[in-house]
């Protein structure tokens, strides 16, 4: 079991979700995060004062999947999320030791 975390641009979420669906990934968890990196932030102005805001809204996807599928999932996300512009995001793969479905108590592959 692996965990794939992907940080993507928010407006790409629908595309990524559909692409993952197409390759059989039917479960995931997402959250709103803010990213800091090479992509430059934006200026905000309030009552004559200017601020540079470095943190940019991103969406984080978390997908638990079998080890065998990792490459396919990573490729799929990469293609769907890519706009060829700085700030498109990153994908991280982490090891997972166990997965349990709350409702049934099933473990491992069965739990996904």
């Amino acid at each position, binding site marked *: 079991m692996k965990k794939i975390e992907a940080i993507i641009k928010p*407006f790409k979420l*629908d595309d990524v979700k559909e692409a993952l669906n197409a390759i059989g990934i039917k479960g995931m968890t997402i959250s709103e995060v803010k990213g800091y990196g090479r992509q430059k932030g*934006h*200026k*905000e*102005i*309030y009552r004559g004062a*200017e601020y540079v805001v470095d943190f940019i809204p991103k969406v984080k996807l978390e997908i638990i999947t079998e080890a065998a599928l990792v490459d396919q999932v990573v490729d799929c996300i990469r293609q769907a999320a890519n706009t060829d512009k700085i700030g498109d995001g990153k994908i991280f793969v982490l090891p997972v030791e166990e997965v349990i479905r709350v409702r049934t108590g099933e473990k491992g592959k069965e739990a996904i």
Partner: protein
Amino acid sequence: MNTGDIAFMLVASAMVMLMTPGLALFYGGMVRSKNVLGTIMQNFICLGLISIIWVAYGYSVAFGPDISGFIGNLDWVGLKGVGLTVGPYSSTIPHLLFCAFQLMFAIITPALITGAIAERMKFSAFLLFTVLWSSLVYLPVCHWVWGGGWLGKMGALDFAGGTVIHINSGAAALAAVLVLGKRKGWGKESIHPHNLPMTVLGTGLLWFGWFGFNAGSALAAGPLATLALFTTQVAAGAAALSWTLAETMLQGKPTTLGAASGAVAGLVAITPAAGFVSPVSAILIGLVAGTLCYLAVVAKSKLGYDDALDVVGVHGVGGLWGALATGLFATTTVNPNGANGFFYGNPSLLGVQALGAGAAIAYSLILTFIILKAIDATVGLRISAEEEQQGLDLTQHSEIGYTI
């Protein structure tokens, strides 16, 4: 001078002013949060722009001494001669008070159009558009109906501005969405309102202000204003009910946005009729308005144009229905200075009403189209695709609506 009338018109003017911030919130709640300020700003800035235009030349062009029924002349530029004595338009309130009241109408009309073009127009282009549209479309049409122009003379009934304000802005909205095109992702992504309580708040302020708008159009605190206030209330209420009923039948649920939209549709439809019809007729007008505008809004998706916040469906269709309904339901039993409509033995009024509406639609559609094409060809109308993703707030104003 009559202090009661003046008292009423002072307050009515203030109430109509409040409609523009109300509209800003009504629209602001319906856009995505990245566009909330941009949307609000397009409305709010009309309070500034039009106030200056009005004093400079607007009032004179709309209400000044008539030139061939089409436009006012420039005698009252800078409000020269528009003073504190009773004026040509009322014998009980100061001329300047009539001018103030009308200013508030002139402010909200271009603001109404912002609902159609929401989430994609450059702010600079919007400013330019507003100046040109007000000058070339609003002022003439206003003159035609109320300033001594040909439409008013023809006998068309428009109590509080169904033609001048709603049909006019609705037609302009249609032209605008055709020229501007769709928002990125329209029809694919789900583009949801970000804050519906804000929209309901805006509706409440609009409804409140609309009493000033419609009842104030009597220009006096008397029976006529009373009638207008009453018909306004019940038409709005009936339309709120009827919109939610229609959607329950077609989609299974009565929505809050439906109730709010219905209320506005009812307010729009009763606007031309408010001082000419009975309370029961007002309810019927409202009931039809709610269902009709709902169907118009549903039809939009099928016609495939992106009238973002449904200005055409609500103000265009609702205003048109109101103009025709006035031709159907008007009766001299409630207002001896009005006229009888179709159901009161005078079918000809309906024709006059249709003609008035048609003229306004045609003029507004064509002029708006030309103005927007001209702006597009020069300074450009739309923000870039990338700016659209980021939103109006950051790209046009360097601000964001909310920070948690």
